[in-house]
C-alpha cells in the first residue's frame, strides 16, 4: 500500500506553500476581489515561471512531463491560497482539452504557450441557466466559423483562446472548437459573479473563426472526459480551500471569548469544527483516489472523479458557511476574510457541474461498472 504522495511531491508542496505564502496572501485575493484587475497578472507570471502551468504537458511540447500527482499537489495549494489566477481554466480545462483531442499540429500550436503561461486558455460550455446537454446547445459552427453565446465563461475576458463546445449533427451531437479570442467575430463582456476574485465573461461569437478540435460529433464524449479530469483537480482546489476555512474558524474560536471563556470551549463550536474536519478529511481521501485514477488513467476515473467532486463540494460548502457562522457578526463584514472561501466554494461548485449533477453521474458510473 502506497497511498500517499512521494517525498519529492511533498517537497513540491512545501515549496508551493512557501511561494504562495509570500505571493498570494489573503490581501492579494482581496485586492483582485475589490479592484479592477480581472486577475493577478504578476502572480500568474510567477506561477508560470515556476513551471506549474507546464506540469503535465509532455516535454516535447515544452512541458515538464510530470504526473497528475504533482498537479494535484499544486491544485490543493492554489485552492488553499484561493489564488486569483486563471489556473483552472487554462490548465485543468483548456490544456486537458488539447491534450485529449488535439491534432499534432494543434498541440504544437497551443501547448508550448500554455506551458509557458504566455497563452491563457478557457473552456466555453454553458449557455444559459440550468444544465447544459448536447441537446441544449445552440452554438453552431461550420467548417471554419462559429456563432453563438457562451455565458458564463471563466476567464473568458482574459484568455487568448477558448475551447468552445458547439452543436453537431453527427455522432453524440456536439463538437469542440478552438476559437482565438482576439478577432473581430468575438465580443466579450466581463461579468460580475458571486466571487469577483475570479474573472468571468460572456462570449458572443458572431461567425468567428474557429478550428475543429478532435473528431466532429465526438464533442460530448470529449466533454465528459475533460470534466472528469477537471473534477479531480477542482476537488483538490476545493479541499485546499476547506482547510483554509477550517483554520480561519479554529483560530478565531480559540481567541474569541464569550462569557469569560474562549468560544472554542463550547460544544456547539467544537462539534461544528469537528464536523468540518471530518468532511474535509473524507473529501481529501477521495481526492487521493481521484489523483490515483487520473494519474494511472484508470477505468475507475468516472467513479473516482465524481466521488471526489461530490464530497469536495459538500465539504467546502459546509466549511465555508460554518466558518462565517463561527465568526459571528464579524464574519459577515467585508473587512474579514471569511467571505473569500464562502464565495469560492460556490463558484467552484457551479463552474463544472453541480453537486446533484455529479451525484447522478456517480451512480451512472457505478451502474456501468456493475453492468460490465
Amino acid at each position, binding site marked *: 500500500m502506497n497511498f500517499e504522495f512521494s517525498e519529492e511531491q511533498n517537497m513540491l508542496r512545501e515549496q508551493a506553500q512557501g511561494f504562495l505564502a509570500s505571493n498570494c496572501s489573503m490581501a492579494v485575493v482581496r485586492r483582485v476581489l475589490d479592484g479592477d484587475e480581472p486577475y493577478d497578472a504578476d502572480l500568474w507570471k510567477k506561477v508560470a515561471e515556476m513551471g506549474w502551468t507546464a506540469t503535465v504537458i509532455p516535454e516535447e511540447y515544452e512541458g515538464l512531463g510530470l504526473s497528475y500527482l504533482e498537479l494535484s499537489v499544486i491544485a490543493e495549494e492554489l485552492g488553499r491560497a484561493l489564488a486569483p489566477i486563471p489556473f483552472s481554466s487554462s490548465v485543468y480545462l483548456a490544456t486537458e482539452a488539447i491534450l485529449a483531442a488535439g491534432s499534432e499540429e494543434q498541440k504544437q500550436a497551443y501547448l508550448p504557450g500554455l506551458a509557458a503561461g504566455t497563452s491563457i486558455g478557457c473552456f466555453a*460550455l*454553458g449557455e*444559459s*441557466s*440550468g*444544465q*447544459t*446537454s448536447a*441537446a*441544449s446547445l445552440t452554438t453552431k459552427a461550420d467548417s471554419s466559423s462559429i456563432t453563438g453565446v457562451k*455565458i*458564463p465563461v471563466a476567464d473568458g475576458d482574459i484568455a487568448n483562446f477558448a475551447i468552445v463546445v458547439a452543436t453537431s449533427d453527427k455522432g453524440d451531437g456536439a463538437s469542440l472548437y478552438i476559437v482565438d479570442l482576439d478577432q473581430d467575430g468575438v465580443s466579450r463582456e466581463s*461579468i*460580475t*459573479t*458571486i*466571487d469577483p476574485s475570479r474573472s*468571468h465573461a*460572456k462570449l458572443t461569437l458572431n461567425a468567428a473563426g474557429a478550428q475543429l478540435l478532435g473528431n466532429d460529433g465526438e464533442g460530448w464524449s470529449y466533454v465528459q472526459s475533460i470534466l472528469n479530469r477537471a473534477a479531480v483537480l477542482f476537488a483538490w482546489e476545493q479541499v485546499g480551500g476547506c482547510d483554509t476555512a477550517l483554520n480561519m474558524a479554529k483560530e478565531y474560536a*480559540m*481567541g*474569541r*471569548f*464569550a*462569557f*469569560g*471563556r*474562549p468560544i472554542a470551549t*463550547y460544544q*456547539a*463550536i467544537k462539534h461544528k469544527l469537528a464536523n468540518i474536519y471530518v468532511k474535509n478529511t473524507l473529501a481529501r481521501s477521495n481526492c487521493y483516489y481521484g489523483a490515483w485514477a487520473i494519474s494511472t488513467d484508470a477505468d475507475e476515473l468516472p467513479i473516482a472523479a465524481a466521488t471526489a467532486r461530490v464530497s469536495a463540494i459538500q465539504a467546502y*460548502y459546509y466549511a465555508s*458557511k460554518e466558518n*462565517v*457562522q463561527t465568526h*459571528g*457578526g*464579524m*464574519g*459577515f*463584514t*467585508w*473587512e474579514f476574510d*471569511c*467571505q473569500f472561501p*464562502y*464565495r469560492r466554494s*460556490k*463558484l467552484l*461548485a*457551479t*463552474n*463544472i*457541474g*453541480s*453537486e*446533484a*449533477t455529479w*451525484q447522478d453521474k456517480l451512480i451512472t458510473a457505478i451502474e456501468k461498472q456493475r453492468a460490465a
Partner: protein
Amino acid sequence: MDFNDTAVEATFREEVRTWLSANIPTSDELKGLDYIGRAKLWQKRKYDAGWACIRWPKEHGGRDASAIDQVIWNQEESNFDTPDSVFGIGHGMCAPTMMAWATDEQNKNYIPKLASGEDVWCQLFSEPAGGSDLAALRTRAEKDGDDWIINGQKIWTSGAHYSDYGVLVLRTDPTAPKHQGLTYFFIDMKSAGIEVKPIRQISGGANFNEVYFTDVRVSDAQRLGAVGQGWQVALTTLMNERASIGGGGGGVNFDSVFDLATRVNIDDAPAIKDKNVRAQLATWYAQESGLKFNGYRSMTALSRGEIPGPENSIGKLVGAPKQQDMASFALDLLESGGAIWDPELSDAAGMFQATYMASPGLRIAGGTDEIMANIIAERVLGLPQDIRVDKGIPFNEVPTSNS
C-alpha cells in the same frame, strides 16, 4: 377551527382597509423624497389620523389597540405598497423602554415625536468584544457633575446615521460583576463626539454601523433606571426585540425555487420533474408551512387575549439556515449560470445570488443559530444554563483573551 376573523376583528379589519385605501401616499406625493422622507411622510399621515403605533396608549399618540388588532393592521398595511419604515427599532424597542422607565415629562417630550415619525431612534447595545455575550460591553461612562462622559465603541447599530436619538447601555462600574456595573441612557445622536461609520457587509450592503464615542456628554437626567440597573432596563428593550424579529423575511422561498425549477432543465426536462428536486422542495414546503401555521396559532392566542409562547423564536432558527440552503440549492439548479450575479444577466435579477450572500448574516443577526437554540433549550424546554465562569466575578477580572 377556521381562518376567519371574529366579528369584532372583521369590523376592525374593514375599517383599517378603508382608511388605508384612501390614504396610501401617491407617487406624486413621494416624488423627490429620499427613503427617510417617504417613511416620515407616511408615518405622519398615520399619526394624524390616529393610526400610528396603535397598541400604544392614546396619551402617547396610540390607539389602545389589542395585539390582534396590531396583527390585523400589519397584515392589511403589508397588502399595500407603502414606504419602508425606518421606525421599527424606535417604535418596537426604544419606545416601550421609555414608557416603562422614563419620567412622565420625558415621555411627553419624546414619545409623540416618535409616534409621528418626526424623530428616528436607534439602539446602541452591541460592542465588538461582546457578540453573543451582549452584557460584556465595555463602553464606559464616568460621572462628571450632572453629566456622564462616554468613551468607547458600539457596533451593529441599524440606522445610526439617520437617527435623532439612541438608547444605549454603558459600563459605569467595571469592578462590579458583569450585569451589575451597567447603566442605561438615551442620547441625542447629534451630540459632539459621536462618529458613525457604516459597516460594509459581504452581501455588499451596509445596513449597520459602527458608532464611536469620544468624550461624549450625556446628562444624568437622560438615565433610565438607577445607576447599575442598566441590564434590567436593557431586558425591557430586548424582550421587545424578540417579539419584533421575523422568520428571516423575504428572499428565496418555496415559491421562488419551485418556479425556478420549472424554468431550468435537468436531463433535458424541467428540473421540477426531478425526484431529488421534488424531495428537497417538499421538505422546505413542509418547513415553511409549519412556520406559517405556527404563526396562525400565535395569532389565535393573541386573538383570544393570550400571550404567544417564546416558541416563536423557532422562526429564525429554522428560517435562516433554510434560506441559505435554498439559495445554495437554487444556484446549483442554475449550474454554471448560478455564479453570475448581475441584475441584467442573472435569473430572477440575481435574487438567488443576493440571498446566498445575505443569508450568513440572517443566521447571525439578532442572535446566532447557536444562541437561538440555547434560548429554546432554556426558556422553552427549561433546561439548565451552561456553566458560567464569569458569574459573580468583577467584570474587569473576567478573562477576555488567552493572554
